[in-house]
C-alpha cells in the first residue's frame, strides 16, 4: 500500500494553499484540503479547468453532532482521468444554519447529490435549481442522516413476546 502523497499532487496542493489558504490533511496517501464554503465554487472551477479534474466522484457530508462548530463537513471527492489523481475537498459548515453554495454550474452531477444533502442532512444549498427532497417522501419531518435523527428501531417478534407485539402491530385490513 502506498503511504505517501503522489508527487504529482504537490503543485496542486501548493496552488490551493496559496490561493484559498486551504489547510492540508493526509491519511493513507489521500489528500484532504479544507476550504471555506464561500470558496468552494472557485476552488472546484480552478481544479477542473487548470488541473483536469473532470469528474466529481462523490459529494456527501459527515455529521459530527453534538459538535456544532463545525457540525458538518461537506465532502467533494474529485478525480482526474487525464492525470489519474484524486483529491478531496472538505468544507466545514456550522450547525446553526448549515449552508453551502451550489456547484451545479461546475459539475452538473452535483444536482442530485446536492438534493441528497438537502434531503438527508438538511444542509441548505444556495442557488440550487431544483431544491426538492430526493429520496424521502415529501412531508417527512427531519433529515435521516443527521446524528440526532433516531434510527427507528422496532422490537422484533420472538416466541416469548410474540402475542404482546402482535396486539399492537398495525396490521392492514382488507
Amino acid at each position, binding site marked *: 500500500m502506498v503511504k505517501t502523497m503522489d508527487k504529482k499532487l504537490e503543485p496542486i496542493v501548493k496552488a490551493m494553499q496559496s490561493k484559498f489558504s486551504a489547510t492540508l490533511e493526509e491519511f493513507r496517501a489521500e489528500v484532504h484540503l479544507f476550504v471555506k464554503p464561500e470558496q468552494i465554487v472557485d476552488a472546484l472551477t480552478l481544479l477542473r479547468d487548470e488541473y483536469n479534474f473532470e469528474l466529481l466522484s462523490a459529494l456527501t457530508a459527515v455529521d459530527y453532532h453534538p459538535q456544532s462548530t463545525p457540525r458538518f463537513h461537506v465532502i467533494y471527492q474529485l478525480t482526474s482521468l487525464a492525470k489519474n489523481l484524486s483529491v478531496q475537498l472538505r468544507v466545514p459548515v456550522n450547525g446553526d444554519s448549515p449552508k453551502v453554495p451550489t456547484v451545479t454550474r461546475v459539475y452538473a452531477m452535483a444536482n442530485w447529490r446536492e438534493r441528497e444533502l438537502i434531503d438527508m442532512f438538511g444542509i441548505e444549498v444556495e442557488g440550487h435549481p431544483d431544491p426538492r427532497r430526493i*429520496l*424521502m*417522501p415529501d412531508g*417527512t419531518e427531519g433529515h*435521516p442522516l443527521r446524528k440526532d*435523527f*433516531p*434510527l*427507528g*428501531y*422496532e422490537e*422484533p*417478534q420472538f416466541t416469548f413476546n410474540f402475542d404482546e407485539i402482535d396486539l399492537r*402491530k*398495525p*396490521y*392492514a*385490513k*382488507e
Partner: protein
Amino acid sequence: MGVEQKLGNMGVVTTTLENVVNWSRTNAMWPMLFGLACCAIEMMSAQAAHYDMSRFGMELMRASPRQSDLMIVAGRVSKKMGPVLRRLYDQMPEPKWVIAMGDCASCGGVFNNYAIYQGVDEVVPVDVYVAGCPPRPEALIHGVLTVYEKVKGDTFKDLAKR
C-alpha cells in the same frame, strides 16, 4: 358422491362447483409483475428456464394489477412505496392473494430502521410468508403451492365476506 357408481365407466365425474372453481383458479393464477428489490431477481430466476414456474400455470406475469390475482411482494417496502403498494392492491380484482416474499417483506429483515415497513402486513393483508434473504426459487414455488392449498380450501361464503 353416489352418482358415479350408478353411471359406471361413462367418463362422468361429479364434484362441487366450489372445487371446480378453486381448481381452475390454482391452475391459472396470474401473478403481478411487481419487483421491488433483490427478491425480484430470484422471482425472475423462478420464472426463467431453470426453475420454470410455468409448470404450475404461472407463466404469465401481468404488469397491470387489474389483470392479476396474486401479488408477490418481492423485496423491502419503503415508507414512500407503501401507499403505492396499497393502491396497487386495491386495484386488483377480487379474489386476490398476497405472498410476502423474503425476510424484508415478511418482517423487515435486516433493515430495522426508519425507512422500511417492518413487514408488508402493515400495508396489505398477507396470505403466505416466504422466509429467506432472498428465498431460493424453490422456496418461492413452495410458497405459491401453499397459496394453492389455501385457495383449494376457500368457500364461496368466505370469499363473499371479504
